[in-house]
């Protein structure tokens, strides 16, 4: 290889990165480094600066890419010396620094070299003369020397420290400072800095407080917060700073405000523990004054929090565990208690926080604080100067208990009630005020908080104490109507139940169940109804726990049994009021069942394994209730109850293991196909008049389809079926849904059954499915002379099957769907049916839903990508009202797709969405608005979306306003109005003001109309939306 030639060409063409050829040569030993240096010789020593610089840069670049092992000790030494000689050459400095940094990291670079390089730097480089980038290189080199040759530098002693502080003095660039602060910290921590501490103080504290504000679009991404943290690290790295730093802090208290004040407080918090008790104690009083002002008077909560941190650091520093709590802590506590003499004032809140902070930060001072505060607070509570003072006093007590709990129950603090016994003397006192609080109006909320805290302090309350307060809590639960308090009580009881489940089981549950009425409250008994509802809400929260669930199951099923048989009271009534009575009972049963369902769902979510055990206790019982009602017109024949029970059955059957599921399904099959109820009910005396699905069955018998459907929807994929031909089973259900079912409600449950069955047994059905679909299409749907309702039912069943297949991404789904899309073009001929078809595509949009259908990944995407082009094409070819059908179909399908999918072809979809906003049906408009909302939510992530929505912003605002305002004769719904309003309220945050500024006044004026909406919830959205628009464009 002709090294001199390569070097020559490169230098002369100013291509200063070494060619691959040369690098390879060095790596495989063909070329020695020395050779390159030799070849560079004439350039390295050239008289023209420019040429010298090129030579040097080429050398440094070469070093940076060749393998480390190729640079031996001698080469290292020679190169180091060579570079050192270049340090006083102004222009050559940057490449020389690069080279030295590379060399400094080599194992062949020894301590002596490090010292030499360091000395060379401080002697030859005048930092002030160089630009930021060069200075940065110097610091990088320092950093490398310090990382690898720390002890050598340390051994230089004074000469190092002196020269270092001079060298870095006056640096201003944030990028360099970030690096310097980290170097400073290392030196301060590891070097003998005591005698030089003033110099270090000068080069660190001169930056405090940091007021840096990064320029907009700062490519380096250094924030003020980064700098503050780095500087704080330096300030808190040497105890020797204390002498100068504390006076500086004290001085700054008077002048700083806002973020700088916060910085000051946090810096104090970081520094005091390092500076040590000795030096802090002298100025503790003054420090406290400065901290206090920010806690008591600050209007910024983040500054207050920072000041509390500072206070904690102060106390922690002054009062280690073995230090007696004399001095400043005493004064602070005294001051707080003074303030607490007026417990209703704002400062009392702050005083409470101060006491809590003292407790958290020191066991000795904390214990002392408690011993001073609690007796005074008890005294105040028991004989308040004003009755209204009791609530804030109790709040203070509870806040302190909460602070105590947070310390004692955390394993990190290593402090426990057993060790410190700080609460022991006040055991009775605490119990007394809390119980008094639970009994008294206006004191309940803080009392509940206090109780929750005490229960969670390990080793504080005995079982009797907990029972005591649980009784008080139960009393509130049953008797208090305040809707704000009740959730608090439930939360407290739930917390208690995790620590003491037996207490809840033996005290709370019996009381709650006792307060559930045995008969439903009458139509006008609103209060009684509210009361049982609130009890059910409590039970729903409490009984999720395994230990308590059993009681719930027994009690609720007993109640339902009672309610299922008409009482004498009911029978006496005459026609109309009996109907009301029945409705009341149904509503009550619904609430009971709904509570049960809520607990079951929660248990499933939390994966409790005990549900299966309750299957036999629950399902046959619920089935009995419903089935026996078909013959005697009992309340459980009501569809709302059947529907709810069917869902509960579905959840519970799903939890069964496959084998038991097979058996259960076989029994259900016998029941519904043959009228053999014995296998599925508890009461074996129930007789049947045959299969409820037979032609000619009564409407209430047909309603039982819901239970069948619930069971099928819960089936797992691997169970054994009780029949041989799945196709036959399916066909019979399809026939039933289209021709036998009486009403829409029954069709709905049958369709769900069909959909679930196809989805789960697609494997068995494979060949026959196409025939089945064909025959539905030709026999039930295509015949325009047939009854419209039959055709509509046919189509919806057809679409339910398509949905089941589309979830599995079966090709048959798409070919079958094509027919439906094709008939959209016939809107002139078959108007009503085609309109229905466009709407019915919404069936596909429900996706997997909350049930137990199987769905493959990306099924929605595949379906959408199949349908969308067809709809767009159809829309283009159609004209006039014909286009509307496609738009309806589009809007009906919208809920199917996630926003991310819209973003892919936003430019096609957005105009369609905008057109959909003017559809007459509020349901479709609200679909469109929902999709639009989710597109807007993602707007900040993508430039394209951002561009598209800015282009269409005006149109969107106009259409949304139209949907938001209730106008006479325009069909609308609360949902579409409030979703339009909440969508509209996103604009001020997303769309740049200059795009919409001329609309601001129009929007505000138009939104004025929405303030008068008949519904309160819509008005609320309107107010929020309008206030956002008022703020739009105002400088923040």
């Amino acid at each position, binding site marked *: 290889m002709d090294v001199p030639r390569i070097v020559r060409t490169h230098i002369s063409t100013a291509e200063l990165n070494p060619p691959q050829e040369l690098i390879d040569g060095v790596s495989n030993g063909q070329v020695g480094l020395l050779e390159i240096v030799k070849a560079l010789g004439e350039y390295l020593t050239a008289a023209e600066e420019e040429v010298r610089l090129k030579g040097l840069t080429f050398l440094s670049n070469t070093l940076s890419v060749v393998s480390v092992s190729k640079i031996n000790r001698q080469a290292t030494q020679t190169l180091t010396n060579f570079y050192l000689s270049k340090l006083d050459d102004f222009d050559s400095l940057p490449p020389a620094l690069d080279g030295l940094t590379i060399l400094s990291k080599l194992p062949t670079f020894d301590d002596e070299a490090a010292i030499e390089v360091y000395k060379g730097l401080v002697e030859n480089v005048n930092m002030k003369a160089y630009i930021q980038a060069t200075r940065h290189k110097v610091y990088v080199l320092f950093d490398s020397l310090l990382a690898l040759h720390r002890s050598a530098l340390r051994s230089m002693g004074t000469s190092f420290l002196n020269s270092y502080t001079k060298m870095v003095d006056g640096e201003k660039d944030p990028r360099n400072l970030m690096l310097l602060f980290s170097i400073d910290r290392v030196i301060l921590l590891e070097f003998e800095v005591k005698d030089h501490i003033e110099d270090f103080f000068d080069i660190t504290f001169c930056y405090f407080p940091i007021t840096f504000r990064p320029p907009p679009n700062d490519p380096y991404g250094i924030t003020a917060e980064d700098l503050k943290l780095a500087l704080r690290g330096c300030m808190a790295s040497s105890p020797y700073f204390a002498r100068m730093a504390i006076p500086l802090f004290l001085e700054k208290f008077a002048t700083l405000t806002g973020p700088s004040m916060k910085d000051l407080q946090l810096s104090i918090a970081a520094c005091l523990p390092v500076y040590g008790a000795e030096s802090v104690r002298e100025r503790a009083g003054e420090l406290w004054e400065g901290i206090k002002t920010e806690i008591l008077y600050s209007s910024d909560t983040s500054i207050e929090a920072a000041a509390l941190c500072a206070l904690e650091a102060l106390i922690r520093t002054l009062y280690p565990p073995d230090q007696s709590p004399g001095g400043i802590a005493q004064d602070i506590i005294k001051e707080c208690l003074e303030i607490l003499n007026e417990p209703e004032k704002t400062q009392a809140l702050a005083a409470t926080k101060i006491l809590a902070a003292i407790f958290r930060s020191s066991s000795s001072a904390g214990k002392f604080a408690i011993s001073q505060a609690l007796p005074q607070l008890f005294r105040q509570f028991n004989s308040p100067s004003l009755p209204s003072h009791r609530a804030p006093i109790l709040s203070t007590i509870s806040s302190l208990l909460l602070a105590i709990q947070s310390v004692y129950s955390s394993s990190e603090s290593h402090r426990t009630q057993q060790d410190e016994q700080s609460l022991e003397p006040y055991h009775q006192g605490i119990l007394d005020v809390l119980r008094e609080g639970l009994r008294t109006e206006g004191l309940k909320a803080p009392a509940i908080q206090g109780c929750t805290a005490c229960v969670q302090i390990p080793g504080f309350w005995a079982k009797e104490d907990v029972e005591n307060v649980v009784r008080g809590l139960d009393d509130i639960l049953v008797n208090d109507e305040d809707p704000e308090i009740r959730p608090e009580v439930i939360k407290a009881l739930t917390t208690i139940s995790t620590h003491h489940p037996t207490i809840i089981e033996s005290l709370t549950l019996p009381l709650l169940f006792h307060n559930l009425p045995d008969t439903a409250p009458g139509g006008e008994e609103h209060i009684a109804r509210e009361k049982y509802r609130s009890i059910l809400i409590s039970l729903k929260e409490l009984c999720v726990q395994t230990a308590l669930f059993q009681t719930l199951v027994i009690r609720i099923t007993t109640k339902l049994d009672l309610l299922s048989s008409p009482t004498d009271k009911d029978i006496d009534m005459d026609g109309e009021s009996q109907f009301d009575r029945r409705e009341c009972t149904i509503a009550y049963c*619904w609430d009971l069942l709904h509570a049960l369902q809520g607990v079951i769902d929660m248990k499933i979510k939390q994966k409790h394994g005990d549900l299966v055990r309750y299957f036999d206790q629950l399902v046959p019982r619920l089935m009995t209730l419903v089935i026996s009602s078909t013959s005697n017109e009992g309340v459980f024949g009501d569809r709302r109850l059947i529907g709810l029970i069917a869902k509960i059955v579905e959840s519970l059957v799903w939890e069964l293991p496959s084998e038991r599921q097979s058996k259960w399904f076989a029994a259900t099959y016998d029941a519904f196909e043959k009228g053999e109820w014995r296998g599925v009910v508890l009461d074996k005396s129930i007789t049947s008049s045959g299969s409820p699905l037979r032609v000619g069955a009564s409407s209430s018998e047909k309603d039982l389809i819901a239970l069948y459907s619930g069971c099928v929807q819960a089936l797992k994929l691997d169970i054994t079926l009780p029949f041989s031909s799945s196709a036959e089973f399916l066909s019979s259900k399809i026939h039933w849904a289209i021709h036998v079912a009486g009403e829409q409600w029954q069709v709905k449950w049958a369709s769900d059954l069909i959909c679930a069955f196809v989805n789960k047994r697609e494997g068995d059905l494979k060949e026959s499915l196409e025939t089945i679909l064909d025959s539905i299409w030709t026999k039930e749907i295509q015949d325009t002379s047939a009854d419209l309702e039959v055709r509509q039912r046919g189509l919806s069943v057809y679409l339910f099957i398509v949905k089941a297949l589309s979830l599995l991404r079966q090709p048959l789904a798409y070919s079958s769907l094509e027919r439906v899309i094709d008939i959209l073009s016939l809107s002139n001929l078959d108007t009503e049916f085609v309109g229905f078809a466009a709407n019915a595509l919404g069936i596909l949009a429900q996706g997997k839903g909350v049930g137990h259908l199987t769905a493959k990944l990306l099924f929605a995407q595949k379906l959408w990508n199949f349908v969308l082009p067809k709809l767009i094409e159809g829309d283009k070819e159609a004209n006039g009202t014909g286009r509307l059908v496609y738009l309806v179909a589009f809007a009906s399908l919208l809920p199917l797709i996630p926003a991310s999918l819209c973003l892919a072809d936003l430019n096609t979809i957005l105009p369609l969405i905008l057109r959909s906003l003017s559809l007459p049906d509020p349901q479709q408009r609200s679909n469109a608005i929902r999709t639009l909302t989710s597109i807007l939510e993602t707007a900040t992530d993508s430039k394209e979306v951002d561009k598209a929505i800015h282009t269409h912003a005006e149109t969107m605002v106009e259409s949304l306003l139209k949907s938001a305002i209730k106008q006479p004769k325009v069909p609308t719904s609360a949902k579409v109005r409030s979703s339009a309003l909440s969508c509209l309220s996103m604009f001020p945050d997303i769309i740049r003001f200059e795009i919409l500024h001329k609309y601001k006044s129009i929007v505000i004026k138009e939104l004025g109309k929405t303030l008068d909406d008949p519904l309160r919830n819509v008005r609320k959205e309107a107010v929020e939306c309008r206030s956002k628009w008022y703020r739009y464009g105002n400088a923040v």
Partner: protein
Amino acid sequence: MSRQLDNDNPTIFAPTASTSTKRIQKGKASLWSEEALLEEEEEEEYYPELGSGSGSKEDREDIDSEEVYDLLRSITDPEHPVSLEALRVVNPDDIHVAGNRVLVYLTPTIPHCSMSTLIGLSLRVRLLRALPTRYRVDIRIKSGTHQSEHAVNKQLNDKERVQAALENKHLLGVVEGCLQTADKRGKA
């Protein structure tokens, strides 16, 4: 602290009882719990209706004093980061709604409070923005709670003066600051 506060240690009260005392529901709404009605609605939504859709069945819920209170409670005091509700400057009992008229009494924390006009102005701006135009709003100092009650009342209910105040950029900025939190409506 840049300026001496008028009242540097005002009394704080616990939040007033509830976000909404139960407005007694009538008819079907009372018999069936909210979840039940919601479920019914969802079902209608998911299954395409055969035949015509159901008609709208919205009962009008009139604006009452509770709703007005809800609009005002979370406005921030100009001196402290505390809501007017916590300072009891506005109280649910001091708001009256009748027909198209709204009357709000505000209670300053101290009788010489120089902020009363500013608070009153914030209340007015909030209601101007959040109530339908058909309402006429009166904002008054609660009788006997302020030294210059009469003057403040006059200022707060004079259209021109309110308008003039709102044209003052700085003043409007302060009012906007107080209103920042208004949409919390008692929620933390």
